[in-house]
Each structure stands twice: as C-alpha cells, then as structure tokens.
C-alpha cells in the first residue's frame, strides 16, 4: 500500500533505460570496424594540419599585418584597416602569436572541411525534399548538443589526442550554419529568376551553377562567416583534448587561477575573432551583387 503510493511521488528507478551503454558499444564498434580507414584519416589530417601550420609559421609576422591592412582597406576604409591591424599587432605584443598560429591552423582546416562537406550537403538539401526532411532535425541536434559531448567520440574514434580530434569536433559543431545558409540561400533565390532560367531551357546543373549559386553567394559567405565564428568558439573547448594554441593558455590560467594570464589569452582570442569576422563580413558584402548600386 505504502509502496504503491510511492510510485506516484517519485519516478520508479526500475523504469529508467540505459542508452549510455549502447552508445559506447556503437562508438567502439565504429572504431573497431573502420580502424584502417580512421587511421588513414588521422594520417591525412595530420599531413594537412602540418602543411597549413608550416606555411603559417613560414610567413614572417609583419607580412600578416601588412596583408590585413591592405585587405581591410580594400573592403572597408583606412580607419578600420588601422584598427584591425593594431589588434593583430596587439596579439603579437601580448606574446600569443605562436599560440594564435596553432589555433588558426585548427580553425582554417575545420572551416575548409566544413566548406567541402557543408556546401554540397546544403545544395542537396535545397534540391531534394527527402534530404531536407532528414537533415533538418540532424542539424538542429548538432547545434543544440553541448559542444563538449563531441570531444569524447572524436577522441575514442581516432584513438589519439590533440589536433585531429579537435578538428573533427570543431567541424561537427561548426558545420551546421554553413549547410543551413547554403540551403536557405538557394531556396530563397527569387522565384521569377528561377522561372526565367527554366523558361530558357536551362539544365538542372546550369540552373545551379549559373543562377542559384551566384544568387546565393552572399548568403553562403555569411554561412562561412558563422561557421568560422563557431570554430573560434570551440578553441578553448578543444584544448581540453590537448589541442595546442591560445585556448590552452586560457585553460591553464583557469586551472591555476591566474586571472591576469586568463584575461590576456582571452583578449587574444577575442581579437582574433574580431579580425576574422570583419574580414569575412567584408567579403560577404562584396559578393552581394544584388545590393550594388541604386535605382535610377
């Protein structure tokens, strides 16, 4: 009698189900079954990361400042170029340039993979209703799942610490906006333009390359921007699995309660984020053909 009443007051323990176990088994199974493939993956990514990193280190520091200045001046105006170049110089003055290069390497490679995979996925989603139905909830899940969760399977799958699982976790976290904005960009192309293309006998590929992608270009560029920003947001988190860079400096400062060091490294990340964001937004605006000029 008393026990029966208890069921209504607290949720009965014997009704809980265990999904953690099956997920572990699944990840283990993935790791075992695709070991050779995954190891090849690690080798390839290590090579790619090394190539980018070596290149970034090969270029002297002042070249970055000069190039940034010129690029921002072309995209915006002199004052903005001056401010952004100063921010970059500041990162170097704070002693975080090497760390920034490690971080930037992971960001660049993650964004590159996101682009290579995200763009076709977005196109597929816009063109095939079935893909749209399947991918929409998947994207929602990818973005709402706490980003820490990706670290574990990335570690387990690749059986290694450091940059490679960091890139994979960053990719999973950062790719959704690129897919979504590619999809939206194509879907939102003015109906009358698509119809005009159709009325002149365009093939589906001509429609994509000559009409839909060029029209969606600025939206896709905005997607690249968002993806990059999300990759920056993962910097500190991936340092938890041993990725080198400014993120690790923040992590160490937190662990050792070094307020000053923590803020210094934090500022370096913020400055990097600002520089990347302005740069990519400027490019997105330049690509927006539909907004050029005024009506007569």
């Amino acid at each position, binding site marked *: 009698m008393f026990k029966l009443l208890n069921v209504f007051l607290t949720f009965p323990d014997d009704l809980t189900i265990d999904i953690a176990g099956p997920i572990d088994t699944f990840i283990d199974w993935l790791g075992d079954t695709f070991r050779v493939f995954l190891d090849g993956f690690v080798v390839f990514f290590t090579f790619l990361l090394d190539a980018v990193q070596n290149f970034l280190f090969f270029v002297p520091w002042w070249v970055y400042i000069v190039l940034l200045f010129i690029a921002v001046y072309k995209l915006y105006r002199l004052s903005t170029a001056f401010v952004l170049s100063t921010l970059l110089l500041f990162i170097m003055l704070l002693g975080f340039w090497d760390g920034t290069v490690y971080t930037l390497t992971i960001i660049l490679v993650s964004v590159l993979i996101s682009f290579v995979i995200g763009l076709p996925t977005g196109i597929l989603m816009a063109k095939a209703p079935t893909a749209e139905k399947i991918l929409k909830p998947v994207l929602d899940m990818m973005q709402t799942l706490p980003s820490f969760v990706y670290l574990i399977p990335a570690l387990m799958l690749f059986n290694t610490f450091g940059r490679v699982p960091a890139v994979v976790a960053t990719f999973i976290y950062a790719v959704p906006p690129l897919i979504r904005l590619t999809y939206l960009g194509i879907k939102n192309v003015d109906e009358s*333009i698509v119809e005009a293309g159709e009325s002149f006998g365009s093939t589906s590929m001509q429609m994509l390359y000559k009409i839909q992608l060029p*029209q969606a270009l600025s939206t896709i560029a905005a997607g690249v921007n968002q993806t990059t920003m999300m990759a920056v947001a993962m910097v500190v988190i991936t340092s938890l699995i041993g990725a080198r860079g400014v993120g690790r400096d923040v992590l160490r400062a937190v662990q050792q309660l070094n307020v000053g060091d923590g803020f210094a490294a934090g500022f370096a990340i913020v400055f990097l984020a600002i520089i990347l964001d302005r740069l990519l937004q400027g490019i997105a605006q330049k690509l927006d053909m539909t907004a050029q000029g005024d009506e007569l």
Partner: protein
Amino acid sequence: MAKAINIKDLSVVFGKTKQRQAAIDMLDSGKTAQEIREATGATVAVKNVDFDVEEGELFVIVGLSGSGKSSFIRTLNLLNRPATGSIEVDGKDLMDMTKDELRQYRRNDVSMVFQHFGLLSHRTVIGNVEYPLEVQGVDKKERRERSMEAIKMVGLDGWENHMPNQLSGGMRQRVGLARALTNDPEILLMDEPYSALDPLIRREMQNELLKLDDEMDRTIIFITHDMNEAFRMGDRIALMKDAEVVQLGTPEEFFEKPANQYVKDFIADVDKTRILKVRNIMNKPSFVAKKGMAVKETLEKLKALDMKFVYVTDEKHKFLGYVTLEQLKKSQAKTIDKLVNPDDTSIYRNLYIKDAWEKLNEAEFDLPVVDGKGRLRGILDYETVVEVLAQ
C-alpha cells in the same frame, strides 16, 4: 517562320493530389470554376480553353487578376503543366514531349518576358541577354555579337555593362525583351510585361513592340489586364473571366457585337479612337514620284492631277521626301533626284489616330504614312481624321 499554336480543351488545376483529381473529374460537368472550387477545394485556374493562334499573330489575352490569363500563358512553355487538354505547336503536342524535347523547344522556339522582369541580378545587361545562348552552348564570340544585336534592337546600346539594378523599370523590361529575342524564338510569350511600368513608359514600350512586331516574323502572345492596352496591341483578343474565355475576336468585333453584359462593361472605358490605327483610315496617294524620274515628266503629272507637291520614294518604295511644284517649274536639272526635300513628318502606320492627331494638326500637308521598314504605304489627310473622330 513563325509558328501557329492550337489549343484544345486546355485546363489547369492547382491543389493537393486528391482534391485536384476530384476537380479534374468535374471539369466537363458544366459547373463553373468557382463552383468546382467550393465543391472540391482545388483551384481551377484555366477551364476548357479552346482556340488557335495564327502564325505571326499578335494575340492578346485580357482579363482581371485571377481570371487565369497568367496561368494560361505559362502553359505555353510548360512552366505550368495543364491538367487536361493539348497544346500543339506546329502540329506537335507539348504534353507528349520528352524532357529533352521540351528543353530544346524552350531553347529554340519559345521565350518569355516576365511581369517582374526576372533578370539575373548577378549579371550585367549583356550577361542577361546572352543567357539563352549560353545555355545552348553557343560560343562566347558569337553570343556576344548576337546579344549586342538584340540590345541595339531594344535601344539599350551603351548600357550593356551595367547591372540590372542600376537601370530604371522601363530599361529593365527592355533587357527582358532583348533577352527573349536573342535566341530568335518563333513564339514570344509576354506575361503582363508592362504592368509594372508607369503609363508614359508603358505607352512608349507598346509602340516599340508594335514597331518590332512589324519588322519581325513572330507569333506573340501578350497578356494584360488593361483593356486599352489590349486594343492597342492585339490583332485578336481573348477576354478571360473565371478561368474561361468569354469572347474572342478582333477589337472591332468586340465593339460591334459584345458577347454579354460583362464584355460591355469591360469595354465601356475604352476610348474608341484608340483602337483605330492610322493604317485603317489612310488613303492611297494618287501619284508617287520614283527616284530617277525626269523633271519634265513629273511636272506634267502634277499639273494633270492638280497637285502642289509629290512624295518621292526609291525603287523599293522607301520614303525619301517630297518635291514641290514650284521647284519643278524652276529646275534646270534632268531628274528630280537633287530636288528632293527631306521630310520628318512621316508617321508610322500602326500609330493610333489619337497619337497621330497632334502631328497632323501641325502639318501643312497630308502626312506620309510609312511601315516599319520606312516604306511609303499611304497618306493621311486632315479631313478623313476629323470625320472619323466626329462619328
């Protein structure tokens, strides 16, 4: 050659699969489009339309918004797929075409001008105009040449490297027209092309189209909701209401025997003098001098006919100017060639009388009437026009 279009029992139905089928089954039951919509929930946009468009005809479909005219014209290049019926272009039914045949038909035989222009905003004017050739795989040099021709034809040369959003509405629609002309289609579909333009530009564009139509050999289907525009443009007109054709005929037939009260109401606002064109009331000149004619012979002819001057053309009837009686009397020359005075009072034969009126008022003589290629076709005199207007 322009192509003829034969439309038989054509219907377009929009809606969810089940409702749509129910509506299709009811098409021949004698119920109106509205009754079918109330019964099934599906929209019958075009219902049992049946007519032929002749080769080279400028055929206008007029009706209020929601009458189904836009849904109809979009079936002619299968942007809308009809629920029932057939559309034969030169004897070939569009509905039987394979995907590939349809693409070839769209590329070579038909093109469309859209109400909201449908310009590719990421391409320049010439980039837009060459698009139809580009999808066909025409090489760059040739398509640039052909595009420039089309751009000149619509009077946009000098603007070819501008972006569409740097142009005014009227200019954008010219780009739309040029683009529709580059692939040299036999059928030109114009879906309310001028509705988004202000009245002055609209009038100008109408006249230009009539002029182009005069020089080209194309079948044009033109959609409008403006009855005046319909009468200005159309060789024949179909008036649509509630998905059906209410009346089909020449502008004159609409006035002589309107099919019902709806047609009467619809044409009540139309200014009659606007549907009569110069070509309908011009006279044949009693004598036209040819280039190279002897002065003496011309003089005699003028005296015999009691004329004070005479219009001069070349061997191909191209209008050159005029020679007066006084000139001929004084002249020592052998032929009249050096005596010809240029004349800029000539009017185009497809002008409406209202538009010719002003020029006629200023003129001292009868006006020479020319066609699209500048050939003298007749003369228009003051008395005839006054007589027509007084009726």
